[in-house]
């Protein structure tokens, strides 16, 4: 399923991130929200948002190599599933976020991330 829904039930709690065009196709970019570095990806399977820091050694996942729905950390090659946040072959995972594409802009579900903000 494409996680980039185009019609969320309500717009409350959404944070406008950027224009969709700010994230080049096939690449990722990062943004800081509430002290967390979040990576936004523009893939053939849609837009995804996950924590930017690789659980292995903190590598910037937004600089990683993208496939249709996974990213490979540029430092040591950990592979993270963009839908589940699971790290392939390791008992590790990163946080995923709900992301919406509305009229050409990307919005992150703020409510969904609130419990983690620390």
């Amino acid at each position: 399923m494409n996680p980039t829904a185009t019609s969320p039930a309500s717009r409350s709690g959404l944070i406008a991130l950027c224009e969709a065009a700010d994230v080049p196709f096939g690449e990722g970019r990062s943004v800081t929200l509430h002290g967390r570095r979040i990576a936004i990806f523009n893939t053939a399977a849609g837009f995804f948002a996950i924590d930017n820091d690789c659980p292995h050694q903190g590598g910037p996942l937004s600089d990683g190599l993208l496939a249709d729905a996974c990213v490979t950390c540029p430092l040591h090659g950990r592979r993270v599933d963009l839908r589940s946040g699971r790290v392939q072959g390791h008992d590790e995972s990163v946080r995923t976020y709900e992301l919406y594409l509305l009229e050409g802009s990307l919005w992150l579900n703020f409510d969904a991330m609130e419990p983690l903000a620390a």
Partner: protein
Amino acid sequence: MSQTIRTRKRSSVAVIGGGIAGQAVIEAVREQAPDLSIKLFCAEDHAPYDRVRLTELIEHGRPVDDLRLRPDEWYADHKIEVVTGTRVSRLDTRSLTVYTNDDAQRFGAVCLATGSEAMVPPIEGADKPGVFLYRYPGDCEQILGNARPGARAAVIGGGLLGLEAAKALVSLGCRVTVVHLMDRLMERQLDATAAAMLLNSMQDLSVEVLTEHATVEVTGEHTADGLRFADGDSLACDFIVVSVGVTPRIDLAKRAGLTCERGVVVDDRMQASAPDVFAVGECAQHDGIVHGIVAPIYDQAQAAAAAIARAKDVFYTGSIPSAKLKVMGVDLVAIGNVENGETVTFTDPATGVYRKLAVSEGQMVGAVLMGDTRGHELLLDIAKTGKLIEDPLATLARASEATAAELPDGAQVCNCNGVCKGDIVSAIRERGLTSIQEVVAVTRAGAGCGSCKPLVSEILKLETGDVVDEQAYLCPCKSLTRDDIAGVIREHGAKSVSEVATRCGAGRECGACKPGIAYLVSEINDNKHREERGARFINDRVHANIQKDGTFSVVPRIYGGVTSPAELRRIADVAERYEVPMVKFTGGQRIDLLGVSKEQLPAIWEELGMPSGHAYAKAVRTVKTCVGSRFCRFGIDDAIEMGIELEHEWEGVYTPHKVKAAVSGCPRNCAEASTKDIGLIAVEGGWQVRVGGAAGASVREGDVLVTVETKGDAMRIATTFLQYYREHGEYLERTYGFVERVGLDVVRENVLDESTGEPQRLRERFRLARAAVTDPWLERREPVHPKQFSEIDSEAAPAGRPAVAFGSESTPAQSPVAVNDSEPTPAGTPVA
């Protein structure tokens, strides 16, 4: 009676015509008669080449030699005399004498393979400058000379060749209009539905198509400037390509008194109306039919060769016309005729797939496969063998899922060289072949465009029980090797990684192979590929080397490791101004600025004013030098000068893995050239060229490729080796692994033996690739994307800003732009 005649051994044969047919005849004859003297007459200046791939001369600017069917050695090894640029002027069928302008020679047999020539339609003004045919390499050269981007080209003829020409012109940036006399494109191969789908694909490529337009005049006072049609309309254009079909070239046969209708009339042994005279290919007419495609040639050549060699009887009983091709980016297979009989079709307009099978009285009479040509080998075999079809729809569906195991031995696998599955299987069994390379070398299957290699590989796996050597997959997810993917790129003319992904799925699952495919796409397209940064490792998106903390290192190019006080001062100033955490010398005699943020890169490059050193890339990194004879009292030759020259020559060229080089001015070897990928060492009386050295994770002394007398020779050979490695190295295979895998003898053969022409061609391709390279650090002024060097909430420091200190702002680009950190923006209010 005929028995006694046929026991008399023939001593010689003349094959007239150096095309695909002529080549097929000499290969078949040589196979059946090892001692027969064979002479091939080529009217063109080239030895036989693959005319089917003529479009590549335009599209990729390749030299004709790239299309050669066989290299010079092959003719020498097989004792075949080849004369090029020599037209046969007369043939005496009684004495079997072949006359050229300055010679006459008698043979035991003569085979005509004179092919056909381009038809020139009776259009007024068709002889004006600016009107070109599309048949010979020379035509392509002329077309290339006129096909500037934006030029308006008219192609007369919407058949196979015309559309090929049109596609090539589009790829060069021309605005193309195809003018066709009939009501649909390729009416000989396609039905109305398929033709309409093809039309759509052409319109996607912005090609205009005018059907049912009869051209009556080429307008223009001196040179062509447009076309006028029978209905009075006209079309303005800058040049015109005419491709309305071919006509058999039979003037020589006619003058020799041979029976000719449309072509030279032959019997089932391909013998013409005179004894010992044969005809094969597009000039031959068998059972009333003149074939204008490649496929029947191989069967005809076998029959003719058997008769020429007086071997066993082989009869040619006709062919079902079939063609596998790519028109306007669409894969197409047309077999037989789909206009008759009962038909079943499968259509998916969304993906541009159209598959149609025509059956008459339980027997297949034709098929059209468009967009998805899987299973065409199976269908062609059904057509050839006349197998009964009970359920046409099921047959059509099953064909698309056919595996190598289901293919009958007679199924043709390689269309370029006419190799059937059975040929491959018996070669594997009889000669114990275990690798794709061996199978290609022995059977020739896959030696042309390479698109059948995945199938060849499947057949090999079947025979060897999945044990296949050299399975270094470039895309392990899809079990595709470098060769497989290279085949896909060549067959489809793919110019980008995403096109490759669309064709074969490589890179979509885990993405790890994307940089390898990106390299392959760039290498095969001589760097005239379509760059997609998402397919590149982060280092190649921002042209700097990522460090453990996500910062980058900057290594400017310092040719040969020779710098100047002013350059050092500038580097020092930049390091201070941007508070670069560490400045360090590298192992390759360069200066490394470590700990730079992504956003700082453009500004730092601008202030350095030096080209990229490519320390982050799989590319030629450095040419390390010693001081050599300029200062050193032991120096034999000028290592610095050569190092600097080589680094300029190789700068910016990407390679399968990093390439480190060095030049030492004497055998003391202070530049450590013996443990570099490419090392040159001055010795008394010349230069030693070493390759495959390493002193990293592996340590290996480079092999001495050759020792030559002059600096120029040494540099030329080093460059030739570099290109050989670029074309044959597996991605991420260093030269030390490459040289060991390939073997030094093979490297020498390809890099040193100038008589084959291959070293020259390697250098030519290197030159093309090098010419298309620019300094990536110039992207500081023209980034490929506004956010190339920044995050969502940061901006890159502008390049070209005045050289003033940033003061206390250590990282000038950290202020959040899109989102305020402490106060979430109310929903619904977009932030700039």
